[in-house]
């Protein structure tokens, strides 16, 4: 029984890793006080999603999960006839785009952070809120 669970767990360890990374990322994004750390958290979150997507490309592993009804775009044959494992390239392409988007987001965020630091001299959110309150509108 336990073995079966272990087996199931390790067979899809990449998905579990993605889940863990995603949660670490979300936690950091929401809970951290430092604006820069929030950005780091966001990047970790995005990385987790990329990992998840790329893992989807592994058709074989999906079929053992029982959700592999996906129509892979290149090869039309069902799994029995195919008789071999292959990796679906489409998620990789998507994630290339995703990485570009993530990089762009990070760029904008970093630019903003520089401006914020120039304006307030700090990146701690609570300090910035205090400073804003002192300055008024």
């Amino acid at each position, binding site marked *: 029984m336990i073995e079966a669970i272990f087996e199931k767990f390790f067979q899809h360890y990449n998905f579990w890793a993605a889940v863990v990374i*995603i949660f670490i990322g*979300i936690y950091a*994004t929401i809970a951290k006080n430092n*604006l820069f750390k*929030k*950005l780091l958290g*966001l990047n970790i*979150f*995005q990385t987790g*999603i990329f990992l*998840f*997507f790329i893992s*989807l490309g592994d058709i074989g592993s*999906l079929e053992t999960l029982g*959700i592999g*009804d*996906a*129509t*892979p*775009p290149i090869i039309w044959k069902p799994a029995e006839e195919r008789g071999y494992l292959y990796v679906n390239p489409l*998620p990789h392409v*998507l994630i290339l*785009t*995703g990485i570009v*988007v993530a990089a*762009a*987001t990070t760029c*904008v*965020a970093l630019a*903003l*952070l520089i*401006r*914020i630091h120039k*304006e307030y001299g700090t990146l701690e*959110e609570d300090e*910035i*809120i205090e400073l*804003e309150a002192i300055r008024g*509108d």
Partner: protein
Amino acid sequence: MINTVVEQFPALIVTTGVFSAFTILILGLLSRKICYYIVLIVTAFHFILSIFTLQHVLTKGRIHYWFGGWRPPWGIEYVVDELNAYSLIVILFLGLLGIIFAKRSVEKEIEERKLPTFYTVMQLLISGCCGVVVTGDVFNLFVLAEVASLSTYALIAIAGGKALRASYNYLILGSIAICFYLLGIGFLYAVTGTLNMIDMRIILQNLYENKMVHVGFVLVLVGLGIKAAVFPLHTWQPDAYTYAPSAVTLIMSTVVAKTFVYALIRLIFSVFTVNFLELYINAWNLVPWLMGVAIIVASILAYRQNNIKRMLAYSSIVNVAYIVLGISFFNSQWSLSGALVNILNHAVAKGCAFAAVGAIVYKTGIKDVGALAGLANKMPYTSGALLISMLTLIGIPPSAGFVTKFYLAIGCLEMQNYLMLAIILLGTLLTLAYFLRVIEQLYFREGNSTQKEEVPFSMLAPTMFLAILCLAIGIFWLTGIPLEFLKKSITSMGVIFR
């Protein structure tokens, strides 16, 4: 011949838009003045194209455009039906007016050397939004939504000061939102193996019981919900609207907000379909109640605001809640019509309100409701426009806002939901309560000067035009001519009435 040309228009709007953005950036090195005119001309051109597109859709049916000739589900497909074409026109029209308004307003609020970049980003924003609206591919939607969102972050931050933190908050929340959306798409892709909306819809039909689909649905819903500022996911929105430059607030509240509302409707109805919602009707029935709470809470929050832009921002949350309320009663044709109608109505009314407020800020620098006293004597036309837009948002007949309320009321009754009807009507009264504060200040209190000082024509014209439209559109809906169109749009969303 002409038909095949029109079929290129959706793709043309997006590609030329993005192309012109970079043209502006380069030409901006030579002349800073030319940037504005390029954006203006390109957007006006796009607006004309979008009218042809709608006309084509209405007469010849849906447009399918395959990028690079790749057949879906492999290639990226742009699909335009009634709903897209309608949203496209709303977005481009308000974008156009926003750009006309922006010129003088931006000259005052932003340093001159930043103008080329400002207009570059503005053009990217509008193209991104158009892209979101015309695309028929869920992943492409993600990319274009990011184009639009990143532009928005930059545009908000251009104001400097408090806008920086507002923009950063929006960036973090917006990115989380888009990541949720992406994750949701991942789940859906895992079970369907396709990214094309129409294809996904067909494959999903047999998978409604699948847990992956449920997770995907919730993630997509939450992601787009944050972007569209659906209560209670709206927390970024009041700050962003308040501190952004006036022209940017105008564009955000109309173009960007409506884009994501469209995306929400498209994903819910065209990818997941009504059948899926019906399967989980008990869970889905929570949505109208949540929106009921949203209408009341956001109205009360609006009442407590002193900053007039912030007040209008909360009013936007109320209106988005009206739209989501409308789509949550998917069994009623009138309820859905109310939602669709409010996309245009709210865009026009809120655009007018923000334009008028922008004009007031431009001329007097006033941002607080309490300081507006006697402004009706000083700026009669702007005040008049603000008054009309507020009456529209309250929903006084025969303005556009009344039509929304009217359709939604019938929708609630068709669903036998009397309490929701009461909430909608209560919402009207609360809206009246907070706008009455502004109206009293404008018209019934003495100001210090009665010297007439109107804003430049290029700001006044769009404001007045929108104010007239508030009434004209209301009457247009009331004539009953567009009912056929609304019905078609609802059908194109995949809702078929028994």
